[in-house]
């Protein structure tokens, strides 16, 4: 079996936001208007933000201040709270552990966005818009079958969307392997954020493969998961600084 996972080394992450924007251009999320952005309606599946370990934790007083930065894709939890609450199976965990979202099924009730403790799910408040000719840059990839629409295809208004670990890249890599008549290997694909990471802080791979980088790094004494206590068992593993 395959369990896709990501490791993010916070020591190497320099909060450049490259992942955030690589994701946008790979997955066709729109840049919303300034007013909408200020209201929190910007859609960046992969976000970067300053991170006190918890909100009440003191980050120190000048000059002994400690600022941290965090980058956060979808955790693709082993035990996702979002899939359980979806009334129509528009979001589900597939057999490779990816938490997926079917844009043509979602009814927009936003239960999953509310249930997700990481805030990784985003809602299309309006139909996504690009001022002409900005839309020319849209990634033409689509992952589709009858009644199912995933991947970076532009989402209609009123549906929930989220990080897919660039599932269309996985599909393309699989198709390529198939076309070349060989078995697909776990290191043939990485999501766009991993590929672009300026600090090479992201690693991607198969947790069920004992030799993969992510499996090795998961054992690091620096490894931790975000909000471990809520029992979601994320498959995004962080390596702490220092």
């Amino acid at each position, binding site marked *: 079996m395959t369990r896709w996972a990501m490791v993010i*080394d916070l*020591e*190497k992450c*320099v*909060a*450049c*936001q*490259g992942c*955030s*924007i*690589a994701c*946008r*251009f*790979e997955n066709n999320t729109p*840049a*919303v208007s*300034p007013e909408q*952005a*200020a209201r929190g309606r*910007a859609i*960046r599946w992969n976000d*970067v*933000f300053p991170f006190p370990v918890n909100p009440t934790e003191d980050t*120190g*007083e*000048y*000059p002994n*201040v400690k*600022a941290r*930065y965090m980058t956060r894709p979808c955790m693709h939890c082993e*035990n996702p709270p979002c899939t359980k609450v979806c009334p129509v*199976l528009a979001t*589900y*965990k597939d057999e490779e552990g990816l938490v*997926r979202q079917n844009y043509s099924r979602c009814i927009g009730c936003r239960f999953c966005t509310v249930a997700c403790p990481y805030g990784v799910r985003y809602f299309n408040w309006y139909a996504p818009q690009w001022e*002409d000719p*900005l*839309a*020319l*840059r*849209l*990634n*033409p*990839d*689509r*992952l589709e*079958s*009858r009644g*199912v629409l*995933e*991947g970076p295809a532009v989402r209609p208004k009123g549906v929930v969307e989220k990080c897919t670990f660039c599932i*269309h890249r996985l*599909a*393309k890599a699989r198709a390529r392997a198939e076309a070349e008549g060989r078995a697909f290997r776990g290191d043939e694909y990485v999501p*766009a954020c991993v*590929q*672009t990471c*300026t*600090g*090479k802080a992201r690693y991607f791979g198969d947790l069920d493969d004992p030799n993969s980088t992510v499996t090795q790094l998961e054992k690091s004494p620096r490894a931790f998961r975000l909000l471990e206590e809520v029992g979601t068992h994320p498959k995004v593993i962080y390596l702490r600084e220092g």
Partner: protein
Amino acid sequence: MAQPLSRRSFLKLGTAAAGSAAALAALQNVMGAAQAAPQTQFQVQTGAEEKVVASACALCPAGCGVLVRVADGRVVKLEGNPMHPVNQGALCPKGQAAPELLYNPDRLTGPLRRTGERGAGAWESITWDEAVQTVTAKLTELRQAGHPERAALLHGDTRGQMRSFLTRFMQAVGSPNVISHESLNVAAAKLGVYLTQGVYDLPAYDLEQSRYVLAFGAGLLEAGSNPQRMISGYTYLRRGRAERGKVVVVDPRQSITAAKADEWIPIRPGTDAALALGMANVIIRSGLVDADFVKNYAFGFDGFTADGKQHKGFKDFVLENFDSTRVEQITGVPSTTIARIAGEFATSRPAVAILPGKGGLLNGGFDGVYAAMAVHILNALVGSIDVPGGVMTQRYMPCVEWPALPADPVAEKGRQAERVDGAGTQFPLARDAYQAVADRILEGAEVEALFLYDANPIFEVPGGARFADAFAKVPFIVSFSSFMDESAEHADLVLPEPTFLERWGDDHIAGLGYPGIALRQPVIEPLYDTMNTADFLFKVAQTVGGPVAQAFPWRSYEEVLRFRLADIGADWDTFRELGVWLVPGYRFARRGSERWLAEVVGRDRRNAPHDGYFDLYSRELNCALGGKQKDELAGLGISQIGDGVNLPHYEPTAYAGDPSTGSGQAENEYPFVLNVITLMSLGPRSEAANMPTLQEISGMTVGETWNSWLEMNPEAARALGLADKDPVWVESLFGIAQTKVRLVKGLRPDVVNLPYNQGHTAVGRFARNRGVNGLVLLNPASEPVSGLAAFTNTRVKVYRA
């Protein structure tokens, strides 16, 4: 009557109980099991025709290699080019967002000629031929009048062949006025290295092998001249090797770099020289200097006699003037910290002290040059010059020499004329004095034709409004900008260049020491009626004819590139496919060897001897300033006399305003030093501000978006009765701006920060009227000796709006 009901309830209860039993038995399974996924065969559809083209990004000075995915003739994604040594396959948000530059709705679609008043915004479309004719006519007129030097070209961060091409063009026409914007940013660091090591270039730092990194000034991971190179080196230093190197950042603001560092040393702005010299003091007193280096390969460590006079050496000067107590008073850094950092620096070799590749904090005044010298000398003291883990000297790919310019008396005369920016004359040390052009024009320097290539001086220069005034006195202005930016608005002709994804170009790879070159090639056909400026200048040259035309025996810029890059060792097709070619592996020079003498120390000295000595006592400075008297020096803003002038030292920042008091603006009236910071997201280039994605992520550290903000220490804000997000006025002697205050704990209480690249009045719909431009508040004066723009010698006051 009761029976049917009760039977029904039995059934109901039974079903419920059985159901829960089943559920319970399977509960463990259900909890862990994957949910039923829709069993469907997914078809992944993608573009019908796809290709990947290698190119190089142009959105910041790093010039990362990119691989551009083109689907059905549309640029849909950029990835880092793994072959490119600077980014090694990575790409920062600016590069990722490049399709928004290409497909920007505010791009200019063809050449424009002004029809109304300057700056009134009335334009008509013209053809390229008309444009060529107009420019040719102007240049011919100047040449016929015998004053080709009255043509000037301001350019921005232009590297690779384009820079020498522009220079060659202007020289062929007969003008020395090719003015780079370096005086706004890297010139301070370059001068520091030049006055000590004798190399006029930014040094490369071998972070990969360094054990201790001490970074002065602006955040090297966000905003330097080459942030991506620094990130690559930094992450390798941290986690790419067995031993984790230590990083210390000296900066009044806790930038992301400082936050990622092991230690952040908040320092009073403009006092870096004192800190570096204080450290040198400790290192010398503890006997931790690299004795071999300072004795055999450095000049002026100990006192010396020359011209029959006893001169003071660096050692005595530092020991006398920069003991920790005094340095603590100057810098606000505790003496214990200074001693500790100095000790760590000197003992954790190889250690390296990094100069900021951005203007910013070192350009507080003349202190900027001295500070850069002082910081660079720290490397020399611990012997980190051209050793693994230390400072490297950047080498460049050899290019085929340009053919000699044909004989042209008009041009030769023009080339001898004084530069319009005063570099070398008014500013003896300066190579460029970009920001001074406005003042010089207003003071009477004659410019009749001004070309703006990749330059937007009205926006990007402190007190840029003066450029608008100066432009009024220039009869003919041409902008090659792809966007109608603030300066283009004042031009007579706007001749849009295609974006970097649609044109030919190249870029020297810098930051790693070893030579390399990256190719920029058209990824798709130009979207609009735009023309590569080089191609345009070809046409102008042909039309001007005569020796100017002879100087350009090529038909297109692509040919120029093929000509210049013929000797790099790769054939053109391979180079086009890879997008990058390099001679990897930096070869360190043994001290005193041939290579050391030829390339590492003293290479670019103009006046001082090329003798392989690293100047701790700057002989180059002595040539420029050595004979000056006290009054003259004071006029240049230098407080020292005698040997002190040539030695790196601390000059108290002369805050602009009231020169009679010496200390400038009264501190109690204008209590904050304004620091204009560059962000990773928006970067240094104006057009980036018109990319909506970059606008959206611009204020990540404080959680702002599409706006500017004033960073202020919470204590300072409390004293002013300001709360987070309050609207405030920021006022200096030079300007006033309204924004909102954001409380940031990681900031000295006497400093406020404004992010750069907001507050545009032009460029496009996404950039216009977003926030404020902090540069309008800054002192527009140039530093009198080095011609540098000053960025941290302005005090402001802040009050509620």
